């Protein structure tokens, strides 16, 4: 098949145009290498630096101007930018990438000397009864609607789950006029215990950011309920109510027209895992992360990983890690150049890692054991927690057997929504030492229209 595709060459391919990929591409191009920067989206920026459409920027102003500036620098450095390009496969340690044009479906191939995976992350959801109802969404969806499109996700919004991300989402919703019925935080992060303070003091700026958000919420009279969770959502054709369970057993029903629930982020590791890179369990024990050194070097020669896809650490860390990976690639591919000093970047990366570790301690994930049996876990194939538990108990006692027996994870999202839950439910034993399993990464690592593959065969 590869021979039928249009091919192109570059010294380095950077997959993902978010903070890590942008910073890396800039350093690589300034170092004299030819760089192709690939992103599935039609604009650069990734999720954090997602671009507000030009027509809306004219009316409402730029969104996160730092992103605009970074993208301008990348283009000026003559990075070959290929947006609207999906990387759906790779081989030869990432030196061959298979692509598809998102609009036309045309297949392509890119040959490189090194590849940097900067594929970021997506939101982590946990199933509860009613989570497939229209009107139940991720907090990130609500944020994009508010910031990009200037549309409030609802008039009576309930935000729930865990993580620092819920705070900026709530503030963005207030800015577009949404009323927030409650912000329901599973944990108790906003009264940190003394043991956690050591980490917070090293990142006062980040702490101040959270304090500012909390102040805004207080000024708008938004209830922040800690130690509470969504038990179930109700509605006929769309969500109309939600039950919130408190630690003391109290259950409160809230009327809502938009329920946003999220539990942090899942790293998007399909590309490095497809290439056979060594992995290890993440701090939550529910994901397999690529094993990387301080520069993002993996066990696969020529493959580098940076940003949230190497472990969730946020936008600042992604930028620093992207630069470190780029410097490592430069030392490798352009050894005649005097290597840039990177000690400062490495120090900053370690400091940001400590902050990420603090967030992991403040916002732990809930147990999957209490997901009711009749709750749908796999949204695409409509498979319940009970069906998965039963399959695991009746001998399909590994993740892949359970997937084959129940079809959980076999739908169009390829297990991105349910994979971590299916793994937790199907896993034998428990405890921190049990290796987190995950679905194997296979080509195509992102859904590809059948028309694209058929048309691809006809390319001379």
């Amino acid at each position, binding site marked *: 098949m590869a021979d039928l595709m249009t091919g192109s060459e570059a010294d380095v391919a950077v997959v993902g145009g978010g903070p890590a990929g942008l910073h890396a591409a800039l350093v690589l191009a300034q170092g004299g290498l030819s760089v192709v920067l690939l992103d*599935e*989206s*039609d604009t650069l920026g990734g*999720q954090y630096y997602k671009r*507000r*459409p*030009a*027509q*809306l920027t*004219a*009316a*409402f*102003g730029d969104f996160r101007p730092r992103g605009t500036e970074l993208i301008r620098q990348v283009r000026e450095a003559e990075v070959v930018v290929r947006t609207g390009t999906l990387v759906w496969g790779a081989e030869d340690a990432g030196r061959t990438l298979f692509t598809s044009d998102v609009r036309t479906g045309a297949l392509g191939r890119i040959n490189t000397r090194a590849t940097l995976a900067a594929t970021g992350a*997506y*939101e982590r959801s946990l199933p509860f009864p009613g989570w*497939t*109802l*229209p*009107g*139940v*969404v*991720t907090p*990130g*969806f*609500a944020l*994009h*609607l508010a910031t*990009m*499109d*200037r*549309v409030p*996700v609802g008039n009576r919004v309930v935000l729930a789950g865990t993580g620092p991300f819920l705070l900026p989402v709530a503030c963005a919703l207030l800015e577009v006029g949404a009323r927030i019925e409650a912000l329901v935080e599973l944990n108790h992060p906003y009264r940190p215990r003394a043991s956690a303070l050591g980490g917070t003091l090293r990142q006062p700026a980040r702490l101040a950011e959270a304090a500012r958000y909390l102040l805004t919420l207080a000024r708008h009279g938004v209830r922040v309920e800690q130690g509470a969770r969504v038990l179930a959502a109700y509605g006929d*054709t*769309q969500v109309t109510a939600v039950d919130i369970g408190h630690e003391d057993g109290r259950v409160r029903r809230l009327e809502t027209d938009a329920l946003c629930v999220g539990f942090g982020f899942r790293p998007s590791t399909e590309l490095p895992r497809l290439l056979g890179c060594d992995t290890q369990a993440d701090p939550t024990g529910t994901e397999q992360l690529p094993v990387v050194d301080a520069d993002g070097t993996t066990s696969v020669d020529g493959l580098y990983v940076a940003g949230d896809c190497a472990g969730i650490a946020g936008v600042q860390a992604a930028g620093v890690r992207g630069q470190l990976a780029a410097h490592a690639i430069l030392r490798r591919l352009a050894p005649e150049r005097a290597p840039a000093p990177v000690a400062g970047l490495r120090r900053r990366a370690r400091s940001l890692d400590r902050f990420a570790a603090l967030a992991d301690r403040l916002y732990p994930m809930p147990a999957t054991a209490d997901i009711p049996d009749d709750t749908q876990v796999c*949204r*695409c*194939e*409509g498979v319940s927690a009970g069906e998965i538990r039963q399959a695991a108990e009746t001998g399909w006692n590994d993740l892949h057997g359970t997937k084959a027996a129940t079809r959980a994870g076999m*739908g*169009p*999202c390829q297990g*991105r*929504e349910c994979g971590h839950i299916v793994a937790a439910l199907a896993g034998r034993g428990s405890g921190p030492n049990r290796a987190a399993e995950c679905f194997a990464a296979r080509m195509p690592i992102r*859904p590809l*229209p059948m028309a694209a593959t058929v048309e691809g065969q006809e390319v001379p």
Partner: protein
Amino acid sequence: MSTNSPPQTVTVTIDGAPGQAWAGQSVTAVLVAAGIWPLRRNPVNGQLRGPFCGMGVCLECEVTINGRPGSRSCTAHVTDGMDIRTHTEPLPTAAHG
């Protein structure tokens, strides 16, 4: 945040009914702003589904845009004259068993 001029509007058609949207808005945003949440049926169990992740991962927000079925409304932007069709009618048969 500065407000320079009101956004340019475009006309789109949602399930046959004409409506206004701001140029550049995502198709999902226009549907949500119009109060249209259910967009399709899950092909396995027939349940109504609407946009969920907003970033092209879950594929729950697929609609037909200008005659092209299976278009992700969260990653598509409206243009003048765009025809958007949802698919919430009950399924004739279940896909499995």
